[in-house]
């Protein structure tokens, strides 16, 4: 039987992650990769991670990013960038490539983008063009320095952390002459602020401390503003040391035009167009996706060094004869070594599929969201609350659309479907309800569970794994993953987010469509694990619906925002399920599009067989995990009605049964890992 011949190359990934027709992205990938495996790897090898301080040595990264075009990646062409349109997938791919070697470098490359993100998402057009075009390297003949930024939300204890409302940063009116622009005073202390060593501007979240300012907001602070711009103490962090982090103290006088997104004046009061929460929600919605993929990249990057170490473990010296299996296969003779690595790889595939699907979704969401904002502005629907209630009214149509989509094409009301398809607001509601699941799911699962699995890769390298000499910097990658699970909203924040969004009816309608689709796929392609995926989606949805109506013996509702013992585990279960769903979709895409590319077609049967097996392994693992969690919630707060338990047990049994053959799939993966061809040496230094 055909199996994996070589490690999957770019052609394969371009198909699976859907950028085979985007040469701009393919070029960006090559750029980020060559930088990662040269300068970034060299810095790590030279010990640049051993200091907390930002050093000249590390600063080489910034000019390398500038020279290679990564600094301008975030910008539109008229601002000095080179990619037209949304750039979520582009940024995700870059974060992935840099993190393949060192995620601190990835964080560094994204820091200014994060600072710009509030301006990019909600800034006025003037703010956007001013700052975006100054954050790119000067064009030939232009004489200016590149601006770099930092994003300051988190504050010293006991203020902002997970909870972003306990804010001590304040803004008040300092001067306001009749007919002139008000002048503000801003006080902000930051904690753990990335890029603070060299930031020329800071986008800071602050609350109002003045009856003449209506609400909280975000403001842009510049290093040349009058007042105190103290970069503060460096964070003594033990991870991501190739990025800069400090606790700044800022107390500055700025014009009111620095309020991000602008303001209006109503009855002598400055009304910011966006509160800090509205801006932050829009920012993190996007920037969390590349972070998710950072951890995933590390897991995938571990496959090659682990195989090499295992295979070569007994070579050299007199330990064994060159013809012996011990010499040829080394530790790969032991089933556990390859089966455990299979788990690592399966997790990584699922994370990559989920993360890149989410990035692509945001590329579709971005223009739709802008169009939605425009329509709402024309309709006079302003402010988060009124937008939310306007959107809620659209949910019915979104669900109607999904019901039509679920029908066989010849039974759909094509006219109505086209009408709903052309309705920007309905399309927005559809995309947003999915993004509201996939974004927190990938941030939570890829980083959190990814960190756990990263530990396995370290373990697979034995004692070598916890030394500096370990190829692939695996120990660093393991600990770095913990930061990825923490910054831009720790796991609790993602679980809290999911607790709210996973009860959305539009999402449920979508999930029902997915269940039907994966049941059909499971019948046509049982080898992909699609049946297990469908069964676990079904079980999860049933459990959620049950928990929404069930009560504990005290009569208290089980599904409640204060009952994190219910909502949080159920959020975790959904992440497993979503990751598997994405993974299977990518395998099917490879099977469908692979034959079109002669290079991929060459080894396609083996590739598809291997990736299907990995998907099956992961689908069984996910179904098992989801079933365990669901069972703990259904039984754990019992006793519950017998008919509910019977219904649950039927669904759970179906879930278990759908995993039939998964262990055989795993054995085949293990065998594939024993014979796959790998390069002679790792392409980045120790």
């Amino acid at each position, binding site marked *: 039987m055909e199996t994996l011949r070589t490690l999957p190359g770019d052609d394969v990934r371009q198909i699976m992650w859907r950028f085979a027709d985007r040469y701009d992205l*393919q070029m960006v990938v090559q750029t980020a990769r060559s930088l990662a495996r040269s300068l970034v790897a060299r810095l790590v090898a030279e010990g640049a991670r051993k200091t907390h301080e930002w050093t000249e040595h590390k600063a080489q990264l910034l000019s*390398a990013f500038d020279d290679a075009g990564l600094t301008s990646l975030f910008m539109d062409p008229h601002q000095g960038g080179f990619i037209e349109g949304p750039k979520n997938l582009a940024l995700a791919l870059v974060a992935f490539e840099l993190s393949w070697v060192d995620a601190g470098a990835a964080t560094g490359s994204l820091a200014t983008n994060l600072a710009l993100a509030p301006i990019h998402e909600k800034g006025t057009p003037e703010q956007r063009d001013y700052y975006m075009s100054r954050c790119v390297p000067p064009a030939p003949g232009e004489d200016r320095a590149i601006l770099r930024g930092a994003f300051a939300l988190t504050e010293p204890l006991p203020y902002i952390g997970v909870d972003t409302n306990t804010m001590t940063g304040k803004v008040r009116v300092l001067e306001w002459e009749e007919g002139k622009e008000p002048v503000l005073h801003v006080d902000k202390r930051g904690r753990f602020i990335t890029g603070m060593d060299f930031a020329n501007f800071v986008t800071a979240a602050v609350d109002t401390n003045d009856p003449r300012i209506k609400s909280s907001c975000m403001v842009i602070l510049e290093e040349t503003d009058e007042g105190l711009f103290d970069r503060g103490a460096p964070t003594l962090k033990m991870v991501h040391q190739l990025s800069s982090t400090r606790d700044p103290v800022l107390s500055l006088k700025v014009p009111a035009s620095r309020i991000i997104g602008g303001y209006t004046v109503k009855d002598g009061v400055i009304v910011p167009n966006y509160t800090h929460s509205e801006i932050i929600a829009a920012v993190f919605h996007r920037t969390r996706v590349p972070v998710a993929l950072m951890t995933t990249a590390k897991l995938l990057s571990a496959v090659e060094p682990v195989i090499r170490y295992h295979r070569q473990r007994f070579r050299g010296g007199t330990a064994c004869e060159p013809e012996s299996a011990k010499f040829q296969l080394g530790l790969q003779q032991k089933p556990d070594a390859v089966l455990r690595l299979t788990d690592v790889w399966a997790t990584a595939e699922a994370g990559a599929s989920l993360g890149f699907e989410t990035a692509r979704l945001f590329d579709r969401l971005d223009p739709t969201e802008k169009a939605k904002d425009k329509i709402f502005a024309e309709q006079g629907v302003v402010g988060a609350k009124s937008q939310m209630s306007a959107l809620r009214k659209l949910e019915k149509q979104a669900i109607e659309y999904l019901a039509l989509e679920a029908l066989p094409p010849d039974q759909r009301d094509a006219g109505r479907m086209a009408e709903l398809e052309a309705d920007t607001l309905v399309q927005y509601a559809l995309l947003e309800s999915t993004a509201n699941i996939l974004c927190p799911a990938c941030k939570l699962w890829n980083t959190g569970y990814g960190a756990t699995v990263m530990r396995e890769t370290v373990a697979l390298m034995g004692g070598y794994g916890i030394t500096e000499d370990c190829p692939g910097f695996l120990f660093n990658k393991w600990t770095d993953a913990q930061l990825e699970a923490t910054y831009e909203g720790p796991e609790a924040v993602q679980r809290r987010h999911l607790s709210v969004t996973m009860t959305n009816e539009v999402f449920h309608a979508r999930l029902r469509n997915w269940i039907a689709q994966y049941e059909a796929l499971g019948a046509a392609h049982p080898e992909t694990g699609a049946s297990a995926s469908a069964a676990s989606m079904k079980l999860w949805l049933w459990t959620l619906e049950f928990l929404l109506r069930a009560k504990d013996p005290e009569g208290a509702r089980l599904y409640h925002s204060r009952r994190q013992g219910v909502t949080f585990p159920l959020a975790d279960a959904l992440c497993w399920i979503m990751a598997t769903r994405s993974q299977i979709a990518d395998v099917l895409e490879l099977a469908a599009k692979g034959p079109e590319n002669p290079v991929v077609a060459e080894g396609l049967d083996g590739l598809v067989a291997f990736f299907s097996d990995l998907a099956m392994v992961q689908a069984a693992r996910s179904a098992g995990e989801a079933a365990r969690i669901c069972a703990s919630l259904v039984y754990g707060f019992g006793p519950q009605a017998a008919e509910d338990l019977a219904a649950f047990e039927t669904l759970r049994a179906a879930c278990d049964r759908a995993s039939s053959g998964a262990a055989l799939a795993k054995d085949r993966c293990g065998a594939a890992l024993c014979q796959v061809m*790998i390069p002679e040496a790792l392409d980045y230094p120790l």
Partner: protein
Amino acid sequence: MSDGYQIVVCGGIVPDPLQTLEPVHGPAGWGLKNELMLPAILDPWSGHALYEAANLAKAAAGSKVWLVSMGPKAKLQQVMMTVAQKAAFELIALDAPAGGFTEAGDVAAALAEAIEAIPGLDKSRLLLFGGWQSASRGAGATMQIVGEKLGVVDQFQGVDKLTIEDGGVLRVLERVEGGSYQESTVSGPPALFGWATGELPEPPNNPQVGMANMRLVMPALQKAKPVQLAQPAFGSVQLPCQKRETRIVKDTPVEAIAREIVDWINA
């Protein structure tokens, strides 16, 4: 040169040097195991030629660079994602096997034909660039034959430096035995230069250059002409008899490295 040069760089692709290369005999003759699936790079010798060409083109106003590349189309496309960001050029792609199992004469004939077909080619301005060797087999003959076929008889091999002097005279440094150079001059084009390493570092990727190149690269790949190359009969095929022992060492002083090499030679 008032109108500048027409610099045509011939450059193939080779498997990434870190990959395990194992000759195998398949239905289509000899090849490398899993060759299509291994990542490829621009042949390093032609890479040097390309960067030198781009540099020279910048120095002589009105010049233009073409890269003529023969290899499997889909593989060429992958390689272009990097190469097209490094220097401005127009691609002429020929779709054919890349490996080291072809005859230099056949390859050269196909390349020469493709060069002859370049619209507006003016041989009086032509500088033919390529590698003096190839990382795939290193016959060292391909460029010479391309030159002969195109009637370019002023040929230089192992070139490390090319400077334009007053009156358009080209001064060339060619590698010769014993680490020495032979210095020559040629009055001007047409001439052929088989590059050694040249003097330029690999340029960093520049996405603006890449995006500009891609407008021509993608159509060139789409219309890449398939070329049939007959494979000669091989008595036997084996990798060069050298033992590759990769050892990774850190912080070793230059003297110690030199000492080790001397000891190894003496042993």
